[in-house]
């Protein structure tokens, strides 16, 4: 979105088309693309042509899936066992190597725990200031992001030649399937151990991952979210919310109070330090509405509060 009137705008647009190119790092579980990547690709499309990097193990299905997405012009795949469970120390040299090969002007990833973990490491190696949680792209170097738990929005200009961005999924629509055309896949080698100032790979060892199972839609991607807070009183009472959620095909979230009280696991937390959601409908049950919680849901289209305290901040 470039809002410069007249001739100059066309000039800038065409410049962007010719020179702008971004590298999107695909987040996936080795068999499926994570939905946030679809949002990242649509954000990156505003910056010029989009290449995607799929690093993982036995992840060719992921690369195939990415080739069919609108806006993607090339897919690089690095299929190595050491990338099976993505740790920042191992992805970083790969991303740097891909950026340098493509000469990408922007490195873009969704603002998830995955993206926020490794992208600053990449930026540091490039000596650029990374920009986290971008909610609007005004031009190739000008972005908006929320600060102070979303209570202010800063417009900033990046002065670096290469820009590293994590983008807030809820701020950009997901890209769709392209109409027919598929992007080519290119196998991309793991950079050598001594390349790029070497990240010694034995510094970190992946031990295990434990994912919480849920049949409900992903919290960050659901069109309806039902959340409970301290007012739910117990973990058992969350069953009521699960029943409501199933009727609405909704995801279930929680406030920090509910997580700290042990009612639900912490990956259900919505807020400044948890997940950011922006569904069509957000139903807050027994949640007072602290600043930190609002930060995670105030961009929802319609917010319904169910609370017995008429003065709860959530009603504002």
């Amino acid at each position, binding site marked *: 979105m470039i809002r410069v009137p007249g001739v100059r705008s066309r000039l800038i647009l065409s410049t962007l088309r010719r020179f702008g190119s971004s590298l999107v790092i695909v987040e996936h579980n080795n068999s499926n693309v994570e939905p946030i990547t679809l949002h990242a690709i649509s954000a990156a499309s505003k910056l010029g042509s989009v290449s995607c990097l799929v690093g993982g193990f036995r992840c060719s299905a992921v690369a195939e899936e990415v080739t069919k997405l609108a806006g993607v012009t090339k897919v690089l795949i690095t299929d190595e066992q050491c990338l099976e469970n993505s740790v920042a120390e191992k992805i970083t040299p790969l991303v740097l190597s891909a950026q340098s090969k493509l000469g990408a002007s922007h490195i873009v990833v969704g603002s998830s725990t995955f993206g926020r973990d490794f992208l600053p490491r990449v930026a540091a190696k490039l000596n650029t200031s990374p920009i986290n949680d971008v909610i609007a792209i005004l031009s190739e170097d000008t972005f908006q992001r929320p*600060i102070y738990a979303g209570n202010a929005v800063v417009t900033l200009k990046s002065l670096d030649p290469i820009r590293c961005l994590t983008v807030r999924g809820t701020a950009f629509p997901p890209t769709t399937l392209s109409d027919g055309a598929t992007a080519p896949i290119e196998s991309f080698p793991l950079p050598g151990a001594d390349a790029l100032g070497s990240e010694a790979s034995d510094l970190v060892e992946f031990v295990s991952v434990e994912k919480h199972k849920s049949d409900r839609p992903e919290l960050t991607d659901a069109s309806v979210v039902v959340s409970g807070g301290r007012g739910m009183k117990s973990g058992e009472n969350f069953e009521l919310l699960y029943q409501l959620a199933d009727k609405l095909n909704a995801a279930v979230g929680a406030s920090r109070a509910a997580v700290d009280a042990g009612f639900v696991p912490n990956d259900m937390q919505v807020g400044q330090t948890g997940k950011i959601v922006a569904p069509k409908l957000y139903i807050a049950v027994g949640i007072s509405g602290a600043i930190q919680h609002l930060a995670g849901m105030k961009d929802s289209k319609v917010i319904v509060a169910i609370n017995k305290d008429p003065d709860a901040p959530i009603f504002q």
Partner: protein
Amino acid sequence: MSAGLRVLVGCKRVIDYAVKIRVRPDATGVVTEGVKHSMNPFDEIAVEEAIRMREKQLAADILAFNCGSPKGQDVLRVALAMGADRAIQVEVDDPISQKLEPLHVAELLEKIVKEEKIDLVLLGKQAIDNDAVQTGQILAARLGWPQATYASKITKDGNSLIVVREIDGGSSTVKVKLPAVVTVDLRLNQPRYATLPNIMKVRFVEKSLGAKKKPLNVKKLSDFGVELTPHIEILKVEDPPVRVPGIKVDSVETLVAKLKEKGVLPSKK
């Protein structure tokens, strides 16, 4: 490192988390004058973890760090009163401190880590003012050290740390070789309060109490040869869009009817 780790903890001074911030009318930032400030909540957790590591005889020395306006010394005194051994402040004029980027802070931390022969850096996963989530990762990259972000549990295993990390959808566990950078999440621990005698120990040399005043060194950026080359120019800071005030309904039927009217209830089956 058998003698115990030398730990560096970051302590940022931020507007208190309970304060409803106000954006300046001239759009240059938020109002900070006369507003309650405190230590970034995640940094308190980092300080607490360092102290617990010492209590388990894993840490030998705890150095608390702050960079920013002279008032940042207040949060360092809190860290000292909680149990840190000494503190270092890198004083920066207020207008310049507004322009500090995580990249700059990481550059400074790198110098201190090397000078002080630090083995472990504990930082908050994010500061609640700029919400950047970057300094720890940048520092780890600059030092060529491993990183463990969003830590909810830290245990030492020989010359490594085993860190449970909070990630989307669950948790993951990594083993990082020391020296390392760890950024801490909310659920790592419950920070202790500084007790009055401990606050006294930090503030005053009280010979009668037999306590020695804890050292707080104040330095300048130039002492470390760090220059602030800007990578980001802030064009403006604004209020987020305001929501249209809502309505209160008195029955479930009206609520459901209103939601159907708005078209936000999925009409299935």
